[in-house]
């Protein structure tokens, strides 16, 4: 695929144009982000009264305060725990159901499409509508604190995952799984040995998006977690907000600290997506 690009025959002028365009898009994407980092070195009054001025010195005070105030280690630990548990569950569940919807033969075709559309409904729901009912359901089934968050997170991911998984799995050539079945694979073997390896890129994509969702999720976390020792990173920002005062610089600095691991995580997974892709391309 990469080779073919050379043959698309862009002129040098067009090449330059493409690079300029790409650079512009990149700048558009990162300027506000760079600006946030700049703000994170400023004091509160400077942020509010004169946000444009360059920070006079590289002032690490905000970071010092953020690290001191937040038990970052604990916040990371809690967040990662919830992320890992939720994603493990949702991947198993939604991959299986999406496989059924995309690949298996339903006696009635309408059932399949009705189920598919039913599972997508959740996309149109804003999370805060669910806060009260979910809290009640948690009380009924006796789930609370971290485990109380996992179930709503898994449920919220169903629609998105179904959308991506089904879309992708449908595109996979069915000759391959037919061949595998003829070779004597049962359903489990077929999924684990044949389908999952081919679906690596979409799995990586789903993982990335869900990690980001859970990492940043605020509404559920804020009502379901009671003990400060269980708080996730997204709740960290509230440590800088009083009823009548707000510590913008501390908040921005802590947000920066919260984002860096996410960026690293994405950087790592992005490579996986690319390599997963090339592996698929060679096979195809």
């Amino acid at each position: 695929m990469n080779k073919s690009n050379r043959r698309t025959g862009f002129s040098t002028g067009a090449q330059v144009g493409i690079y300029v365009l790409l650079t512009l898009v990149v700048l558009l994407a990162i300027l506000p982000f760079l600006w946030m980092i700049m703000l994170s070195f400023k004091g509160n009054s400077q942020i509010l009264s004169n946000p444009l001025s360059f920070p006079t010195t590289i002032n690490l005070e905000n970071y010092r305060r953020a690290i001191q105030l937040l038990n970052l280690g604990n916040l990371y630990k809690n967040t990662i725990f919830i992320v890992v548990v939720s994603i493990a569950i949702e991947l198993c569940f939604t991959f299986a159901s999406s496989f059924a919807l995309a690949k298996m033969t339903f006696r009635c075709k309408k059932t399949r499409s009705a189920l598919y559309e039913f599972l997508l409904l959740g996309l149109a729901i804003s999370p805060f509508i669910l806060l009260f009912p979910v809290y009640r359901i948690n009380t009924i089934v006796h789930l609370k604190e971290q485990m109380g968050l996992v179930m709503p997170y898994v449920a919220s991911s169903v629609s998105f995952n179904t959308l991506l998984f089904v879309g992708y799995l449908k595109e996979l050539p069915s000759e391959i799984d037919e061949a595998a079945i003829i070779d004597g694979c049962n359903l489990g073997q077929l999924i684990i040995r044949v389908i999952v390896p081919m679906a690596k890129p979409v799995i990586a994509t789903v993982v990335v998006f869900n990690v980001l969702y859970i990492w940043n999720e605020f509404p559920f976390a804020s009502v379901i977690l009671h003990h400060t020792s269980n708080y996730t990173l997204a709740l960290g920002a509230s440590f800088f907000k009083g009823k009548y005062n707000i510590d913008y610089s501390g908040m921005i600095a802590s947000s920066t600290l919260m984002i860096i691991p996410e960026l690293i995580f994405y950087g790592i997974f992005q490579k996986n997506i690319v390599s997963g892709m090339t592996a698929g391309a060679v096979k195809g």
Partner: protein
Amino acid sequence: MKSVLKRIVTFGLAAAIATSVTGCATSNQSSSSDVASEKKSGSKTVITLGMHVANVDEQEPVTGKIIKAFEQANPNITVQIQGNDKDAHVNKMKLDAQSGELPDIFWMDSSVAPQLNSSGVLLDLSDFLKAYPAVNTALSENMKAASRSSDGKQYGLPYQSLVTGFWYNKAVFKRVGIDAPKNGTTYDELIKMVKALHTKGIIPIAQGAKDAYSVWGFLTGLERYGYFSKIDSILNGKAKFDNPDFLKYFSKINTLGKAGAFPSNCATSTYFQAKADFTSGKAAMFDSGVWDAGVLDKSIGKNIGFWWGPTFQDSSDNQKVSMNVSSAPFCVSKAVGDNQSKKDAVYKFLAFYYSKQAAKISYEGSIIPATNYKVDANLESKPAFKAVVTALQESGWSSPKAQPDLVLTEAVQAQLYDSIYGTMLGTYSPKEALEKIDSVQQQQ
């Protein structure tokens, strides 16, 4: 000590999660984990305190200090704080009320507390006041009345005193060459000040409409047009917000806006940005309250002043209105009443919270406590706080039974704020603004 507590909490939680996961949890699961932690800690009692900030030591330092002093005085009681930012906290308390998981003591919005009370989840604190007569006398009648229901149930006690008004910066007025306001300054004089300041490029009154609740000084003005003499008939539908007196008042707010009294980015500013405008010397006055005294001591220092807002010559109502009322209350969960050792601990905590010792901690931290003890505190190093204390001692000025918005339901409250800001910004005509409040009131 701390790590032991932490281990206990984690143990309790682990147990709770384990039982819930294995599915053999019983309905009194929360109390079973409490029992576990009590057993582990010997005779130690743990009381939980739900706060409207996530980080009490930083955001509500006075309360943080009182809690520490309390724990020192009562080594067998531990106060465990469950904090969250205000909106999240209120939501969580509403939910916890339904699942029976309310913290033992918690801060609550004054408009939500009565609803919690009528759903029967709050403990009547009359017994507490009887058991501690010193506290009963230290809390003045209007402080207690603010969180008492019509059938006499004391469902909460004031967290602090709520003192609101306008701060001003003497240096800014001096620079422009006009006199600073003082208690008794009339509305007409204020308009002149506003015009003089505005032409010099100074923001006369710092306000931030994005935090719609930040209209304290203007709420006091309502009482100068007889708010509490009208409100009962308004609430039972016999009168309207849209009445000649309030219309006069709203027209004046509108005129202030047209005269350039408020920042040009008022609509997109937060209360915090308004504060920054004031502390950086860009604004001459700032609508706020005593809670900002600490910040203003540091940023403006000796140049700070505090007044109760303009008086109005076209009103026949009392003009000498100050605003020193009960803030949102501390409530106690009804479940506390069923557990004697817990109830004792909660009473002890409240008694300490409303003690003279705690009042002293408050004054030292630039907060006016709900109690009225005479406390010797050196205020010389706290000019802003001193300005408030001076204003409170001004003779002839008195406070109504509550801040005007606090007797309304949340929806009407929100519309009142919205209408005041809409009138300031000129989005609503004064009449329109009042009609909007009436139409929301009708929905209640």
